[in-house]
């Protein structure tokens, strides 16, 4: 480990991993319990439209991405609340529309455009300092918002109808959540790329959910697991000489299966058919 830590970039990558894990662990918990994993994946793609817009207008693409995902968050919330459409379909449509727009805008913009791959994949080894700061600020915002609206988030995520009868402005709370997801995705895309974001948003909270039925504990466990996966993955990739983002993801996936197996051994003789039904119970 030591010889690895002597490099600036390595220390910075570890810091990035931990900072990313905080945001992803907290936001990812909501993503997983509210079953909106799809949203995180789509927002990442929606961001591409913004990147295209950024190039087209000659502004920093990251602001385009911000504007686009924020707008899409608002759009998802709005259409969802006002137009009575299925959320997942709307998101699928926005996904496709944004990507298409991104392609056309990039095609139409003059001058050099950056490669799509770096947006999709990112590279945690070479996260610039400013992105670290971005991520840190995002962590603080997320923690603050969640700290302030913890109960409201939970109530709205669990039973939105009842929350409304109690007087919670459920639209606002849900939009706030969507905005948090949007911001996380954009900042993370810049720092670590799309796949790592999706992996860190979903895998640690899913593992955590197997061991607790408390949202706050899920968040804590997720942040810890995320940090283990990123730092461990980094270290592993160093010794195996593999791409670090991918190694982190594979480590997390391994973690998921190990945890599944452990739980499986514990409950081996328990019935499971019933539990599986829960999928259908939800649609």
């Amino acid at each position: 480990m030591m010889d690895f830590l002597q490099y600036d970039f390595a220390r910075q990558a570890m810091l990035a991993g931990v900072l990313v894990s905080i945001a992803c662990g907290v936001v990812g918990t909501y993503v997983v319990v509210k079953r909106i994993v799809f949203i995180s994946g789509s927002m990442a793609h929606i961001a591409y439209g913004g990147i295209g817009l950024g190039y087209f207008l000659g502004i920093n693409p990251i602001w385009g991405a911000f504007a686009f995902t924020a707008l899409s968050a608002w759009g998802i919330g709005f259409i969802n609340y006002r137009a009575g459409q299925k959320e997942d379909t709307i998101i699928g449509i926005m996904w496709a529309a944004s990507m298409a727009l991104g392609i056309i805008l990039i095609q139409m913009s003059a001058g050099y455009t950056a490669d799509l791959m770096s947006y999709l994949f990112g590279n945690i080894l070479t996260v610039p300092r400013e992105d670290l700061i971005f991520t840190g600020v995002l962590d603080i915002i997320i923690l603050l918002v969640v700290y302030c609206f913890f109960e409201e988030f939970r109530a709205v995520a669990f039973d939105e109808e009842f929350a409304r009868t109690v007087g919670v402005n459920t639209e606002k709370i849900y939009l706030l959540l969507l905005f948090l997801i949007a911001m996380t995705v954009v900042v993370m895309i810049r720092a670590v790329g799309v796949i790592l974001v999706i992996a860190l948003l979903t895998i640690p909270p899913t593992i955590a959910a197997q061991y607790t039925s408390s949202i706050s504990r899920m968040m804590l466990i997720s942040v810890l697991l995320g940090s283990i996966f990123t730092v461990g993955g980094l270290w592993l990739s160093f010794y195996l000489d593999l791409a670090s983002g991918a190694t982190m993801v594979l480590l997390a996936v391994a973690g998921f299966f190990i945890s599944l197996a452990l739980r499986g051994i514990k409950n081996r003789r328990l019935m499971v058919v019933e539990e599986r039904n829960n999928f259908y119970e939800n649609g």
Partner: protein
Amino acid sequence: FKKEESKVREEGVLKVWVTVLPQADLVRKIGGELVEVNVLVPKGASPEDYEIPPGRLKELSQADVYFVVGHLPLERVWIERIKGINKDLLVVDTSQGIEIIDDNPHIWLSPRLVAIQSRHIYEALSSIDDENKGYYEENYAALQDELEKMDEDIAELFTGIKTRMFLTYHPAWTYLARDYGLTELAIEEHGKEPGPKHVAHIIDVAKKNGIKIVFASPQHSIKSAQVIAKELGGEVKIIDPLPEDYRELYETVSLIADAMRRAEKNK
């Protein structure tokens, strides 16, 4: 090649297609007024994620010759499809006879390989358009002179430099390095995302040799290159691996040579 001949007579010019900008320059120099050159990947676009719009395909369906670089992934996908659209298209692989390293496509960045490529271009053009063979030959000879001159000039740039090592993010200069006895340190391994060990290794080597300049290309994100430069206490310099005018190559290589000189001093 009867058919193509008649085409030339009818329309006056040969419709020639190439994939990247530097190739276009070569074809223009050899074909002169007798060719109309089109580039598949326009300026600024990255050959990695270029989607061909229908208008281009329409034009492609009327093309006469397509000179491929030979090892660009983009070409691997599209050439067969383009051939499907235009069955009369003559596709010429300009990388024939060039020893390829690791499937690296950037053969247009060494004057010596460019000489081979331009011979393929010349031969193809004159076999299609036999009538104007003399015209092509004349142009070709001039280009060869130019390239020889550039070859000598470039070789001269490095005289007196002992550690001929330079650091680049994207491994576009591999052939240049081979032909002029340079060592290219590339952060991307074979054009793929690097692992941390590789990055650490590059940093070690660069530090040992006093290298402080990281070359990046404008088609790729320079963000990552900046982080490496920071670790080395140096800076990022942008050099274009897809120059519109072939003569730019000399300027680019002189930047590389400058960087080497500075590194020697740092050592």
